[in-house]
């Protein structure tokens, strides 16, 4: 069944008739990242106004793969369980070269985590769930559809925005301005900020089809990826399941195709039949994309902060666009809330440093996957094809095959807010079962000291403590003694062996930007 794109209501904003009081935060763009940003801030007690030029969720084929860490962040934001329950969890991936299966893998996720390695869920559902969650927080989130931001100016301690609505233009002011307007970011263009990176010449046809039966050999959802499939000579292809019996097909088209003529039913229907055979199907959506990897030199420009695709874009192989953006939100939410409550702005500089690091990692991985799939020279193609041939027999070569390295939580070791060099420092928390739920449900969203032993751990009022129950999962993931300090975004910023109150206080001061 096709998704019902119900428009969200437009309400004439107060600023049309009289000046609005200055908002703490204005978020431009209600895509997944802008919406998640507003929810995160609301949960930290910060009010925001969210302005979007449109009034429906994301139309057509965009993000489908949501990684475990993203789901854990979404859990904190109140939509994780819903996404998991609606989403498709797949385990088996098969990789083909020509007509032959090179190998298959079973993700067999480790037990003892609330969320699987990832789920597939269409971006429109994710946005719908986020909008509904934001609407439930309406005392903190002022969500305005059909409000297009046309200009902004930074006045040092606030930003002034010009907005256009169906009823005409108005202006508003905010202490901070968050640009979450996607890859084409008008804010970035207005500020003439360089957006440097690599554009891939290759075109990709992305199709969503509804099928009555599974095209895989079993009813279980799988991920099939082909290099040089018999039905699509010389190129690569991907088949992946989404909810509602919708299947995603990615077809590499080569650099010299005409995107307009490719995205026509006349051309696309034979391509679909070549893959799925004679089964009846409903074409849900099709589009032709060219991909690029690029990012801003800085994500923080005084009062203007960039998040999500407006700060960085990647090719979709490895699913790091939306997943990377959600980590931006997780990183920025508590810091901006703290700054608005009087913390030093160096915390925002740490957002810039930590997420540029995350973005570098995502760009590196996405660019490598894209290069593997689209060799630029004869020699690159030769190594690629021989890797595929070796892989049928040799496990080492399987590991070189790159059809996307799925998004992993970014590690923040050696960055300014962290203390010490314990191997856990900088990592995102590792989930584990608790007697009444999951660790990701119990401790995210605030500074929290996870204690592992019965020593007398003393912490300042600003830090929670949580005694982790002694279980085999705890022993394997955290050990048996000491304590681990979590930031509100679940990253570990320090580890302690003894309850040294001064050391804990110092690590906390460092993690909150109070001391360098």
């Amino acid at each position, binding site marked *: 069944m096709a998704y019902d794109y119900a428009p969200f209501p437009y309400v004439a904003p107060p600023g049309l008739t009289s000046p609005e009081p200055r908002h703490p935060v204005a978020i431009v763009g209600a895509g997944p990242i802008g919406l998640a940003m507003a929810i995160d801030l609301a949960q930290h007690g910060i009010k925001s106004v969210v302005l979007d030029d449109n009034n429906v969720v994301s139309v057509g084929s965009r993000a489908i793969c949501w990684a475990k860490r993203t789901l854990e962040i979404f859990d904190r934001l109140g939509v994780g369980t819903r996404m998991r329950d609606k989403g498709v969890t797949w385990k088996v991936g098969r990789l083909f070269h020509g007509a032959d299966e090179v190998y298959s893998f079973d993700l067999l996720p480790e037990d003892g985590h609330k969320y699987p390695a990832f789920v597939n869920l269409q971006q429109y559902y994710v946005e719908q769930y986020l909008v509904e969650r934001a609407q439930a927080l309406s005392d903190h989130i002022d969500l305005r559809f059909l409000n297009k931001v046309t200009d902004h100016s930074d006045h040092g301690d606030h930003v002034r925005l010009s907005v256009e609505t169906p009823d005409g233009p108005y202006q508003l002011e905010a202490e901070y301005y968050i640009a979450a307007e996607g890859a084409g970011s008008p804010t970035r263009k207005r500020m003439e900020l360089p957006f440097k990176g690599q554009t891939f010449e290759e075109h990709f046809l992305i199709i969503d089809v509804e099928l009555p039966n599974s095209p895989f050999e079993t009813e279980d959802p799988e991920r099939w990826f082909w290099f040089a499939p018999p039905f699509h000579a010389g190129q690569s292809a991907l088949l992946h399941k989404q909810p509602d019996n919708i299947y995603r097909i990615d077809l590499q088209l080569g650099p010299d195709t005409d995107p307009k003529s490719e995205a026509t039913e006349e051309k696309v229907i034979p391509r679909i039949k070549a893959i799925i055979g004679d089964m009846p199907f409903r074409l849900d959506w099709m589009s032709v994309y060219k991909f690029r990897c690029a990012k801003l030199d800085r994500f923080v420009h005084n009062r203007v902060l960039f998040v999500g695709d407006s700060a960085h874009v990647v090719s979709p192989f490895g699913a790091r666009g939306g997943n990377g953006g959600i980590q931006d939100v997780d990183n920025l939410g508590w810091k901006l809330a703290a700054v608005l409550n009087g913390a030093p702005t160096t915390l925002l500089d740490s957002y810039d440093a930590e997420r540029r690091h995350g973005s570098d990692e995502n760009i590196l991985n996405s660019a490598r996957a894209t290069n593997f799939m689209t060799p630029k020279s004869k020699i690159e193609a*030769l*190594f690629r*094809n*021989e*890797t595929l*041939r*070796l892989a049928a027999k*040799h496990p*080492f*070569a399987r590991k*070189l095959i790159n059809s996307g390295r799925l998004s992993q939580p970014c590690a923040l070791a050696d960055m300014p807010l962290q203390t010490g060099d314990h191997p856990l420092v900088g990592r995102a928390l590792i989930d584990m079962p608790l007697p009444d739920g999951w660790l990701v449900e119990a401790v995210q969203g605030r500074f929290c000291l996870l204690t592992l032993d019965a020593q007398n751990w003393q912490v300042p009022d600003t830090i929670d403590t949580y005694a982790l129950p002694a279980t085999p999962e705890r022993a394997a993931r955290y050990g048996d003694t000491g304590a681990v300090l979590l930031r509100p975004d679940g990253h570990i910023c320090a580890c302690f062996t003894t309850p040294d109150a001064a050391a804990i206080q110092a690590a906390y001061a460092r993690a909150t930007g109070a001391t360098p």
Partner: protein
Amino acid sequence: MIINDRLGPQGDDVYAALIAAHDGLDTDQSHALNARLVLILLNEIADPNRIAALLAEARALSSSD
């Protein structure tokens, strides 16, 4: 970097074996074999620093540089 001689007196045998491995192959097939061989050898060497040094050494003789 100095690449130590590790083949010693077996050098001639090893070289002959390399050439013999290509017997009966056309140029494309030989290039493909070489590519597989490089990949297999990379896995045997395994150490990324060592591999980087060896790649640089081979690259140093490319005429375009």
